[in-house]
């Protein structure tokens, strides 16, 4: 492997990793607050990409798509939490199974609905003309759009990190994801936070849907693969931990990128091997609390 190849492989892994952070954030924060894996997350990612497609074809601007889709899906996320999940959790406060089944059903519903609305045809979200072509970074050439995808997702991830780690709102979110009951006793409005976190997670997944949608193609099932990756990333990082989601995602991006280059016949199981090793050494993940339910 040449130096150029190693550097390119590193950048590719980073591009995938930071976008994975956007997807993993919602998954891990929602899990922290509700104790439930949101199975509709892949559908929210997919709907984000399609919302981006609608905006960019109607209004002819990728940038508007990147702005509108996350906001729209943030609202969808908030509506799901307020309109469906909350009433269910109020009626059955002890059940983790029912919210899980609800999100699972919602995911199937959204996939089916997308197939009805947009068809099963493979469609593509066009990247902005300004980001066509490649840029030269020292010794290597890298596609301008991929570089944008890296920077945009990184900026978003840093913003979210600042909010979560450096603001009073973030303090409440961290408290509520670690122990919602105790946080509520101490006067944190956990209900309001749950809505905010669900909306934030949905919006970030939608942003990733738009950013990654241009690199691949859009289909109703497009979210499955990346959300599985995001799930592996948060298991590695520790379910419910935001820092864990970031570290897990970046690690997974590199494992996938270098796995392909170094162990071509073994890179798919390699990801699961890494997860297994982490779980053996630290059963609650790299940044897991250990005391979590």
């Amino acid at each position: 492997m040449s130096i150029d190849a190693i550097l390119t492989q590193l950048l590719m892994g980073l591009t995938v990793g930071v976008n994975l952070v956007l997807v993993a954030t919602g998954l891990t924060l929602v899990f922290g607050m509700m104790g439930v894996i949101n199975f509709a997350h892949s559908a929210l990612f997919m709907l984000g990409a399609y919302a981006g497609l609608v905006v960019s074809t109607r209004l002819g601007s990728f940038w508007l798509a990147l702005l509108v889709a996350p906001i729209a899906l943030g609202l969808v996320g908030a509506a799901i939490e307020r309109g469906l999940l909350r009433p269910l959790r109020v009626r059955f406060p002890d059940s983790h199974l029912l919210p899980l089944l609800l999100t699972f059903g919602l995911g199937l519903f959204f996939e089916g609905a997308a197939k009805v609305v947009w068809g099963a045809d493979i469609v593509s979200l066009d990247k902005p003309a300004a980001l066509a072509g490649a840029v030269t970074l020292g010794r290597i050439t890298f596609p301008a759009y991929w570089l944008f995808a890296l920077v945009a997702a990184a900026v978003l991830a840093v913003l979210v990190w600042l909010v979560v780690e450096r603001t009073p709102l973030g303090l409440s979110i961290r408290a509520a994801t670690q122990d919602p009951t105790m946080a509520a006793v101490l006067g944190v409005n956990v209900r309001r936070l749950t809505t905010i976190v669900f909306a934030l997670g949905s919006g970030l997944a939608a942003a990733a849907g738009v950013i990654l949608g241009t690199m691949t193609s859009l289909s109703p099932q497009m979210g499955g693969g990346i959300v599985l990756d995001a799930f592996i990333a948060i298991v590695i990082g520790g379910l419910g931990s935001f820092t864990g989601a970031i570290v897990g995602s970046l690690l997974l991006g590199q494992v996938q990128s270098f796995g392909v280059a170094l162990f071509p016949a073994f890179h798919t199981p390699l990801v699961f091997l890494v997860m297994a090793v982490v779980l053996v050494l630290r059963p609650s993940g790299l940044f897991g609390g250990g005391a979590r339910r």
Partner: protein
Amino acid sequence: MNRRHFLKSTATAALGAAMAPAAVRAEEPIKIGVLLPFSKAFAVLGENTFAGFTLGTKEIGGEIAGRKYTIVKEDDTADPSVGVSKLRKLIDKDEVDVIVGTIHSGVAAAIRNPIVDAKKLWLNPIATNDVLAEQGCSRYHFRFSSSGWQASAPTATWAKAKLGDRAYICAFNFAFGQQTAAHFKKAFEGAGGQVVGESFPPFGTTNFAPYFPAIRDSKPQVIFANFAGADAVAFVKQFADFGLASSVKIVAPSNLVSEDVLAAQGQAAVGIYSNSYYTPSYDIPKNKWFVKACKEQVGKDADHFLCAGYDVAQALFGALRETKGDVANKERLIQVLEPMKIDSPRGRLRWDPKNHNPILDIHMRIVQANPLHHTVVDMLKDVAHPDTGTCKL
């Protein structure tokens, strides 16, 4: 088939039955089992193939030789284990007479034995698995597309002569990808070229970028790329994004740049060479009619999936007409099909009597822009799957 058409065809069929002689009316309808991927990554390919078949049934109407027919659709999801259980359901529960399917080579291999054991006529529109023309061939099986060898080996010889001496191979890591890769390699090296590297990404890969540094380092002039569906879109777009397309020519089986993915690939697909048995711009009267009929009657742009699906219907209904709707006597149906020459949109379709694989005129095409389309640059005449001596019909 949409609901209106279903109602219409059922109504005509019922009317036909009312006027038919009592003996025929008493007969059960002919049951046609369609096993294709209607969901997951190959959904569009399955739907297009079925649209082509539907176009054929529209030509026929609701009955053939005085007998009604019904179509039972099952979704194999391009997964061999799902395919086998859906096939069992078609054979055991629905008791179909004929199987039309499928697309994924792995599913085709998995359903081969159950179909042959049940002695059902098997019309295979797309699946290219070579085994079906060699040790796994069967007198019950007729293929309408090409074998993996036909989709790759002639391309290798052509690419060595026209494009360069150094080739890289990048293909799906299941039967179709691995078989075509092996054929390409053998034929390319046989023609004096050198294969400088290989990689086999898994089915469903969305990020091909990690494979590219190795390709760039090995400095090929040609890359043989075999992907389909969403994978093909991702590969072609990313290959262009990373600037590889300017120095490495892509040659491929038709599925890499077939009409179901071409629009989504956009400009990134321009300049890609592909091998196909069908090209929508092919200038013969039957094809001009076909392209128009696809658009008007089933709302699709013609492609090789629709062509194969349509030819399946032509062959099936042609044979049933010949046997006066007798679907029980499979030997007679096979005897009728074997020498049949079908007036296909691709030209004439006929089978190799040695293995029931089609003898093809292969179109070598290049993708051109504005609007995106394939132009035939070379025609390789009468290409048959090589006789390995392993097929006993």
